[in-house]
């Protein structure tokens, strides 16, 4: 028996609640409310439409499909034009306007079609996947030739390590933890091995497949929970509107493989847990192990969701046959993920707990005690302040979701509190689980108010929006299908959500949430790539840095310890295959005005043999989200108009023991091996003058 409150049809397909007689929710029952002939006629017509929709499940309609394909292509052309203009250095605000037009041309038609009554199930799931893929193409348009996001360099280095050594757990200087979660790198490396494709193309294929997987799984899970393909369509839209979906979830990053696998495990377990054959759970074990070795947080989230699901089933006294695998799998995922986390991936505990979780929680505590003022939202990169509409869009999106969640969770509670004739609760564990996940949304926003918690808050969105999607999907069904308590609430609400107005209103709300959430997670200046010939300090790896990194690999050998700024360390690590020390520990070496004394001690302590000096730091503020060259701890980090002090780079030419071995364009490489191994004590050269 399915866990859904909606009964499963004999064909094995879940029928839409709007036309299902066995639908237990009081909001959907067929009891007539008012004896108004015209309204009755309309209700009958609506029910007929819903029934028609269920009969059209098996086929895609040609006309709408071609229209959606055409609008999506048009939207992608717009985003491509915006990206091309950005590469050529055209005016940013114009490019951004074209980009937004493209995004909306993609999103709006699909959202309207997804929430329409007449759309069949096959078309809905196809649209959900199509939307995910379309946004994936938007991400690729921004970096069509190589990976450009920070996390992508980390995992690219992992792939390179596996391809060169054929083994896992090799040192990753950009993020040591990532080497201990080799799932993404291993599957990409095997694809590279078997196809001969480049690391970049193989990575795009793996993440593209994961993207299709996550879009389909979200739809199917939501359909299973809500019992309606239309509600699942709303859930898919809500998930696609989460702040991380456009760019973050499309990156070549371990989370973007781990999370789809976790969703797949939930769907597969829900799909097969009542099957007689225990072999079906063999695949669940394989998927669970794959999640464990791919991404820590996804594995923990999977364990938490399965644990919560089992607990709710236990409380609701769900039949043993339905929950027999959920509990054991919750324990299995919890055990394997914690064992891997603490015993195998040893740097992970420090990375997750000390570097990410604790600072955010401490800041929340300080804010609560009024010891900290928190951070200004939409601070932008390098102190840049975005236009007011950008901030407003984000706030409206958060407000819509938060306000919508109140009746949505109330709706879930109504379902929970309804009892059967034998006074037992209906088996509605998944709805309760999703409502609990959705209810956590306001709390996940709290870290966003802190200086270090923004990333923590953003990353929870990918998980929380699953619950939000399902509960909002259920609510949307209530609103558009005239649930009784809404009719009592207001005739105006009733009218607004009736017939085509409901579809339009839902699509508009989803579009506003999508647009707002894009602004929430992406700084104003980061939606489009920087110019291919940037002036000042660039926000991405530049060709001359790649040339210098390649030179270093050829002439100095791989694995040399470098000190460099953050952006250049990505190229050094991947193109150069060098081991740059953490920019967070290297920054005092650069910010110091002298090379003797404390700076020499730092070079020795960090075992730095080469200095990678990029003089472009002198010509512009750091344009990344935090406004820093190395790390948030560096002096004047995030201050508007702040540029790197010239003496910080000039000192390397002013002292003995520091020898320039490479100079091309703005890049200089210095050999400081003598200082590192203690054979040379740096002294100021009177004859040499620093550059300013």
């Amino acid at each position: 028996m399915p866990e859904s409150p909606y009964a499963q049809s004999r064909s094995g397909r879940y029928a839409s609640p709007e036309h299902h007689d066995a639908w237990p929710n009081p909001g959907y029952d067929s009891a007539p409310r008012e004896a108004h002939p015209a309204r009755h006629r309309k209700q009958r017509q609506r029910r007929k439409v819903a029934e028609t929709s269920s009969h059209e499940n098996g086929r895609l309609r040609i006309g709408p499909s071609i229209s959606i394909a055409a609008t999506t292509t048009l939207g992608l052309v717009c985003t491509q034009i915006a990206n091309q203009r950005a590469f050529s250095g055209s005016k940013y605000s114009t490019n951004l306007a074209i980009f937004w037009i493209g995004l909306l041309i993609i999103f709006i038609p699909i959202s309207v079609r997804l929430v329409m009554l007449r759309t069949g199930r096959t078309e809905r799931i196809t649209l959900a996947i199509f939307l995910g893929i379309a946004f994936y193409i938007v991400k690729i348009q921004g970096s069509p030739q190589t990976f450009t996001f920070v996390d992508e360099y980390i995992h690219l280095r992992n792939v390179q390590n596996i391809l060169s050594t054929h083994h896992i757990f090799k040192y990753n200087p950009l993020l040591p933890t990532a080497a201990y979660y080799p799932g993404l790198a291993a599957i990409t490396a095997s694809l590279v091995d078997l196809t001969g494709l480049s690391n970049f193309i193989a990575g795009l294929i793996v993440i593209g497949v994961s993207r299709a997987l996550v879009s389909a799984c979200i739809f199917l899970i939501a359909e299973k929970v809500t019992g309606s393909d239309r509600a699942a369509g709303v859930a898919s839209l809500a998930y696609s509107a989460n702040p991380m979906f456009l760019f973050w979830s499309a990156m070549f990053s371990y989370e973007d493989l781990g999370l789809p696998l976790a969703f797949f495990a939930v769907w597969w377990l829900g799909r097969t847990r009542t099957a007689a054959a225990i072999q079906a759970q063999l695949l669940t074990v394989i998927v669970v192990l794959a999640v464990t070795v791919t991404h820590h947080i996804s594995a923990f989230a999977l364990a938490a969701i399965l644990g919560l699901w089992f607990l709710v089933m236990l409380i609701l006294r769900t039949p043993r046959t339905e929950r027999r695998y959920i509990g054991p799998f919750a324990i299995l995922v919890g055990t394997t993920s914690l064992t891997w986390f603490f015993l195998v991936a040893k740097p992970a505990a420090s990375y997750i707990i000390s570097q990410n979780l604790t600072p955010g929680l401490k800041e929340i505590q300080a804010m609560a005690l009024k010891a900290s003022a928190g951070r200004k939202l939409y601070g932008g990169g390098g102190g840049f302040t975005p236009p007011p509409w950008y901030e407003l869009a984000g706030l409206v999106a958060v407000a819509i979701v938060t306000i919508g969640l109140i009746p949505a969770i109330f709706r879930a509670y109504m379902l929970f509190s309804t009892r059967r004739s034998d006074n037992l609760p209906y088996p509605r564990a998944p709805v309760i689980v999703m409502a609990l996940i959705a209810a956590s949304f306001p709390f996940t926003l709290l870290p966003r108010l802190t200086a270090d918690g923004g990333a923590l808050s953003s990353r929870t969105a990918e998980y929380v929006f699953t619950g939000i999607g399902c509960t909002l999907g259920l609510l949307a069904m209530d609103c558009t299908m005239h649930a009784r308590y809404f009719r009592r609430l207001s005739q105006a609400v009733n009218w607004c959500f009736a017939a085509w107005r409901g579809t339009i209103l839902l699509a508009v709300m989803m579009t506003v949430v999508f647009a707002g959430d894009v602004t929430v997670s992406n700084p104003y200046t980061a939606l489009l790539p920087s110019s291919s010939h940037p002036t000042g300090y660039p926000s991405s790896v530049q060709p001359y840095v790649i040339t210098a990194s390649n030179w270093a690999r050829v002439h100095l050998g791989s694995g040399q310890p470098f000190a460099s700024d953050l952006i250049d360390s990505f190229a050094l690590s991947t193109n150069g295959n060098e081991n740059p020390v953490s920019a967070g520990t290297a920054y005092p070496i650069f910010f110091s005005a002298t090379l003797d004394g404390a700076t020499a001690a730092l070079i020795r302590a960090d075992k730095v043999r080469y200095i990678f000096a990029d003089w472009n730091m002198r010509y512009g503020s750091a344009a990344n989200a935090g406004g820093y060259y190395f790390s948030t701890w560096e002096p004047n980090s995030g201050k508007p108009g702040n540029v790197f002090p010239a003496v910080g780079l000039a000192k390397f030419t002013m002292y003995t023991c520091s020898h320039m071995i490479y100079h091309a364009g703005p890049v200089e490489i210095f050999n400081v091996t003598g200082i590192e191994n203690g054979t040379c004590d740096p002294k100021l050269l009177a004859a040499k003058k620093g550059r300013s």
Partner: protein
Amino acid sequence: VRINRRTAIRGSIVLASMALVAENVNIPQFARIAPGILLVLALPGFALVCAILPAAEISPGELMLASLGASVAVATISAVLLAATVGLSQRSAAAVLAFITIVASICALLKTSRIRQAHH
């Protein structure tokens, strides 16, 4: 066009064998792309799901999704295990994934045969 599941399973055996051969003989790189992608992202999962659920308990759409998800999981685990032990290389990856596909396909064929006999 409806393809019989048994025919599809037989097809997966043929494709996995072809991919295995393609990885072990000297052929142009472009000819390895399609078999390689299939061997990593489609065939092992399809064969495994067909072996696990031999009867028509799963719709074609769900079968496609399950094949994709299962293939990604199987390819990830086998790649990690290979890289942790004997080393991940073109030949080792091809051998393991083709072996999983062929064994699972044979299991699926045997199971479906048994089910058909039981029905008759």
